[in-house]
C-alpha cells in the first residue's frame, strides 16, 4: 500500500507533523495551554475555510490567520493580562461557528471534499509536503537547539528572568512555532489530527515515564508509529485516516498508563 505515491506523501507528511506536534505538545501540557492549542486549531480551520470561500490558497490563509491570532494572544499574555480562559473560549467558539458558516455557503468546499474536522491527509500535494517539512524542521530544530532555554522558561519563569533570560522572547518563539505548525498542518490533516497529535502522544510519554527527555522521545515515537499504523489500518478497512490515527493514539496512551504504573 505504501508503494502508491499518494500514500508515501501521506505517510511522510503525517509522520513529520505528528512528530513535530508531539514534541511541542510536551511543552503545551507543561505550560497548561491545551485549551489554547484547541483554539488555535480552530483559528487555523477558519483560515482554511476563508481561503476556500474567497478562492485563495487555504494553506497560506490558515498559516497567516493563526500567526496573527498567536501574536495577539502572546501580546495579551506578555502584558500580564493573561489569556483568560473565557477569551480563549470566545475565540474558539467564534472561529468554529464562522468556519462552519463559510463552508455551508461554499459549494466549492463541498465539491472538493473539504473536511475541517477530519482533514484528508491522503490528498496532500508535493508542494504542501515540502513547505510542511521545511516549517516542521525549522520549528523542531529551533526547539532542540534552544531546548535548555525553553525548558528553563517553561519550568520557572521568574527564576529564568532572574538569570537574565529574555523569557518574553522565548515565549514568543514558542507560540509562533506552535501557531505556524498548527496553521500549516490544518489544511491537510484536519483539526482532530492536529489537536490530538499535540495532546495524546505527549500524554502517553508523560504517563509512561517520569523522565523529561525520555518522555519527549516516547511521545515522538508513539506519534510516528500511530501515523504509520493508522494509515495502514485505514487503507485495509477503508476508514478515514485522521480518526483512525487518533484512535490508535488513544490506545497507545492507555498502554502508556499501564506501563507507567508497573
Amino acid at each position, binding site marked *: 500500500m505504501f508503494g502508491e505515491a499518494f500514500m508515501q506523501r501521506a505517510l511522510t507528511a503525517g509522520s513529520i507533523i505528528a512528530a513535530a506536534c508531539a514534541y511541542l505538545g510536551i511543552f503545551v*501540557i*507543561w505550560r*497548561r495551554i491545551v485549551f489554547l492549542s484547541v483554539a488555535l486549531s480552530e483559528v487555523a480551520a477558519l483560515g482554511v475555510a476563508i481561503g476556500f470561500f474567497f478562492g485563495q490558497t487555504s494553506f497560506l490563509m490558515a498559516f497567516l490567520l493563526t500567526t496573527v491570532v498567536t501574536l495577539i494572544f502572546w501580546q495579551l499574555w506578555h502584558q*500580564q493580562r493573561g489569556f483568560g480562559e473565557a477569551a480563549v473560549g470566545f475565540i474558539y467558539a467564534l472561529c468554529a461557528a464562522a468556519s462552519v458558516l463559510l463552508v455551508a455557503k461554499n459549494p466549492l468546499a463541498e465539491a472538493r471534499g473539504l473536511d475541517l474536522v477530519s482533514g484528508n491527509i491522503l490528498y496532500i500535494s508535493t508542494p504542501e509536503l515540502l513547505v510542511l517539512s521545511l516549517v516542521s524542521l525549522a520549528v523542531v530544530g529551533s526547539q532542540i*537547539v*534552544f531546548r*535548555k*532555554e525553553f*525548558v*528553563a522558561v*517553561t*519550568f*520557572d519563569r*521568574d*527564576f*529564568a*528572568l*532572574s*538569570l*537574565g*533570560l529574555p523569557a518574553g522572547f522565548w515565549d514568543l518563539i514558542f507560540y509562533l512555532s506552535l501557531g505556524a505548525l498548527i496553521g500549516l498542518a490544518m489544511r491537510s490533516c484536519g483539526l482532530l489530527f492536529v489537536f490530538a497529535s499535540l495532546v495524546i502522544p505527549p500524554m502517553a510519554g*508523560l504517563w509512561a*515515564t*517520569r*523522565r*523529561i527527555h525520555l*518522555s519527549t522521545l516516547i511521545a515522538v515515537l508513539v506519534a510516528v508509529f500511530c501515523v504509520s499504523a493508522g494509515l495502514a489500518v485505514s487503507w485495509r478497512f477503508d476508514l478515514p485516516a485522521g480518526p483512525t490515527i487518533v484512535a490508535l493514539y488513544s490506545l497507545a496512551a492507555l498502554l502508556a498508563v499501564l506501563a507507567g504504573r508497573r
Partner: protein
Amino acid sequence: MNPIIVFENVALGYGSQPVVKGLSLKIYPGQYWGFIGPNGSGKTTILKAILGILPPLKGHLYRDSRLAFGYCQQRKAVEELFPCTVREIALMARTRLAGLGRPFRHEDRAVVEKCLRLCGVGHLSEKLFSELSGGQKQRVLLARALATEPQVLLLDEPTTDLDLKGSREILQLVAETRKQLGLTVVLVSHELPKVINEAEYFLFLQRTGGLRVVSKDQLNAALLSQVLETEIFLKNGKNGILVY
C-alpha cells in the same frame, strides 16, 4: 563602602496599582536583611524589583550592574508537573552561563554537583523533584540559587510549611553558606520568630502599607508591637531572642 542596591522613594506594583509605596533602603555588601510582613504586603514584589523582573512605578532603584543574584523561589511557585530530576533543576541555574543554544559544560555540571553537596542533597541528584520532602525541595532550590555563583542571595519564604527542625536546618545552612561564600542575603518571611536571630537588618512591611527599616540592635518589644500591630514579647534565651 558603597551600597550595592539602593531604593529611593520607590513605588512598586503590577499594572498601575502600587503594592509598595515610598520605599527607601540601602543594602551594602555582606549584609543580612530580613523583609518581614504579612502575606500580600509586597515582600516578593520587592525581591522581584531587586532582581530586575519588575521595574519601579515611581522613584529610583539602583542595582550594581556587576551583581549576580541567586533567587530561591517559594516552593509552591515551582511547577511539580514537570518530570525533572534534582540535577536537571539545579542545572537550570547555569542556562545563561553555559551560552545561548549550547549544551551545559563540564564546569556547569561540576558547580551544580558542588552546590547540591553543599546543601546536603548531592545523594538525591537522580531523584525526581516531585518525590522529595518539603525540606529536601527547599535545599534543592537553595542549591539552584547558589549554582548561579551569586554575590546576593534572595530567599522567598524558605521556611514556609517546614517544621521547626526543618526550618532551623535551612536557616543554619543559609547562615553557614553566607559565611563561607561572603554573600549578601535578603530573606523574605512572614514568620518573625523564625528569622529574628538570623538577619542583621529588618524591613517591616505593615498591612496598612507602612514601611519601617530597623537594625537588630534597635529591636525591642514596643517597637515590634507597633510595626507588627499585635502585642509582642521578647526574651533573651540561650540561643538568641525568643519571640512570643
